[in-house]
C-alpha cells in the first residue's frame, strides 16, 4: 500500500501528518520524503542515516577533436543546453534535462556524457520505520529525477508513506503517481481552500482516491468543510489548533510525541484509508492506465 500526503499550500501540516502516521504504524511502515527541495521529515524523526547516494543526471561532454561544428546537437536540444557558436560547441549543463538526444543524434559521435549532481538520496531508519529522503543540491532546479530516485527505494512489503512537496505542479504529480491513496492536508483558511482545490484538480486525472485531513481545524472559517461535501472528498481527520503541538513541532517533535493520544487516531486514519482502497479495488469503477 502506497499513501501519499500532499497539500497544495505549504506549511499546512503535511510532514506532521506523514511522520505521525508512519510512526504510529511502526515496523509496518516506510516513510519516503519526496519534498526534495526542503525535506523536513528528518527534523521530526531524527532518523539514523545508514547510507547516502549521490544522484546524478547525464549531461553532454563534447570531444572537440571529433566535432565538425555541424550544429545538429543545438538543433535537436529542446532545452538550450548545447549550442555550436563559431569554432566551438558550448554546453550549458544547468539547462540539460538529460534526455541524451544530442549524444544519440550527433553524426560524428563526438558527444559522450558526464554526470551533473542533482542531490542525494539517504536511507536509514527511525525506530522500526524505514526512512528514505531526497535532498536537492542548492542551486539545482530539477527535482523530478531526484523524486524518482527516492521512489525507486520504495519497499513493496511495507506501507509506504510518501511526503509530497507543496504546490500542484510536476514535482507533486511525480510524487503521488502510482499511489493507492492521497491524503490532502489543509487548513481552514481562504489560502488553504484555494490551494486544496488546485491540488485536487491536479491529482484527479490520475484517478487516485483522495481524502482530507484538516489541520488547525478551528482557526479560520468553514469553507473547506463545505467544499469537501460538495466535491465528495471524505474529511478523514480534524486536528484542532493546540499551542502545545505547535511548540512541540517548533522543537522538532512529532505530533504523536507531544500528544500520544493521536497514535490511535492515526491508526484509525490508516484503517479508513485501507478500507477505501479495498472497496475501490473491489468495485473497480474506472479502469486506470
Amino acid at each position, binding site marked *: 500500500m502506497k499513501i501519499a500526503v500532499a497539500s497544495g499550500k505549504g506549511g499546512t501540516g503535511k510532514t506532521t501528518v506523514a511522520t505521525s502516521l508512519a510512526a504510529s504504524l511502526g515496523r509496518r511502515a516506510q516513510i519516503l520524503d519526496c519534498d*526534495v527541495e526542503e525535506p523536513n521529515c528528518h527534523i521530526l524523526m531524527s532518523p539514523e542515516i545508514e547510507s547516502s547516494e549521490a544522484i546524478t543526471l547525464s549531461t553532454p561532454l563534447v570531444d572537440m577533436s571529433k566535432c565538425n561544428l555541424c550544429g545538429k546537437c543545438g538543433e535537436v536540444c529542446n532545452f538550450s543546453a548545447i549550442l555550436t557558436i563559431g569554432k566551438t560547441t558550448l554546453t550549458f549543463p544547468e539547462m540539460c534535462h538529460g534526455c541524451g538526444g544530442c549524444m544519440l543524434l550527433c553524426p560524428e559521435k563526438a558527444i559522450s556524457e558526464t554526470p551533473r549532481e542533482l542531490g542525494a538520496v539517504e536511507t536509514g531508519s527511525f525506530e522500526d520505520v524505514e526512512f528514505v529522503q531526497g535532498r536537492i543540491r542548492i542551486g539545482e532546479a530539477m527535482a523530478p529525477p531526484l523524486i524518482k530516485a527516492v521512489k525507486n527505494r520504495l519497499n513493496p512489503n511495507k506501507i509506504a508513506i510518501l511526503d509530497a512537496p507543496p504546490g500542484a505542479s510536476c514535482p507533486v504529480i511525480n510524487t503521488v503517481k502510482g499511489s493507492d491513496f492521497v491524503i490532502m492536508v489543509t487548513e481552514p483558511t481562504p489560502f488553504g481552500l484555494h490551494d486544496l482545490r488546485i491540488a485536487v484538480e491536479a491529482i484527479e486525472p490520475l484517478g487516485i482516491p483522495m481524502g482530507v485531513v484538516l489541520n488547525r481545524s478551528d482557526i479560520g472559517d468553514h469553507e473547506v468543510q463545505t467544499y469537501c461535501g460538495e466535491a465528495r472528498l471524505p474529511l478523514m481527520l480534524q486536528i484542532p489548533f493546540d499551542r502545545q503541538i505547535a511548540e512541540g513541532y517548533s522543537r522538532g517533535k512529532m505530533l504523536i510525541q507531544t500528544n500520544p493520544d493521536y497514535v490511535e487516531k492515526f491508526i484509525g486514519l490508516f484503517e479508513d484509508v485501507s478500507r477505501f482502497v479495498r472497496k475501490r479495488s473491489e468495485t473497480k469503477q474506472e479502469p486506470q492506465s
Partner: protein
Amino acid sequence: MKELVIISGKGGTGKTCLTASFGYLAENKVMADCDVDAADLHIILEPRVLEKEEFWGGVKASIDQFKCVKCGLCAEVCRFDAITDSLTVDPISCEGCSVCFHVCPENAIKMDEVLNGHWFKCESRFGPMIHAALLPGEENSGKLVALVRNQAKTLAKELGKSLILVDGAPGVGCPVISSISGANNVLVITEPSLSGLHDMQRAINLVQGFNIPTVAVINKYDINETVSSQIEAWLGENKVNLIGKIPYDTSVIKSMVQRKAVVESNQGPANEAIRNIWERLSRDVLNLEA
C-alpha cells in the same frame, strides 16, 4: 527600478500575508505573484483582470498509430519512461525532449505544443498586478515565473513605477531560482521552528549563491524564543540583516479570512511590527524616496 522578492524556503511562514501588507503600504509599485502553481496573493488583492494570456511552455510527443510499425525504438531511447508498453505516450511522464520524434524511422511521432497555463494583467485594490496560474499538474513553472517577472517589469516601465514587489514560491528549486535570479533584493521570511530554520538556511544559501543582498524576517517569533535566538545567531554568523520580528497574533488569520492585508485594520501587534519592517526596508534597504 527596484525588484524585491519575498521567499521563505518553508511554505506557510507568511510570504503572501507579508507581500500583501507591503502592497498596501508601498506606493508607486507593481505587484507580481510568482508562486505560479499555488498563487494566493489574488485572494487578498481581488484583482480585476484586464488581460488574460495563454502560456505555451513546451511540447509533448504523440504517436500516429496508423504510421507506427511497432519497432519500439522510441521506447528504447526515451529516458523518461514516457512510452508505454503498447507504444503510446504517457503525457505525464513525457519531458518534451523530442528524442523519439527524431529517431522514429516511420515519422510517426509528432511534437504538439502544450498549453501550460495562463497569466493575467490586472488592476487591484493595491494597484497594478501580474499573476499567473499554471494548469494543475503542469510543468515549466520556471519559464512562467520568468514571464510574470518580465511582464511586471514592462508594466512598471510603462506606468513609471519605481518598485516591483514579488511574492515567491516555497522551496529552493526551479520556480524559486527563476524568481530570484537578477532581482535587486530578497527578503526571506521564516518561523521559529527547526524546520523553519533548516529551510531558511537552504533558501539563504541559494540567494547568497546569486550574490543578491538578503534580509530576513522571523514571523511568530514568540512561539519559540529559543529557536528564534538560534535563527538570529545563524543570521548574524552569515551576515544576513534581520530586519524585524513579527509576534504571533490571531488577527493575522482573521484578516486572511476577511481577505484583507494584516495592516489594513491598523490594529494589533503584527500590524505594528509589519509597518516598522516596511519603514526600515523601504528607507534603509530599498532606498525608496519617502
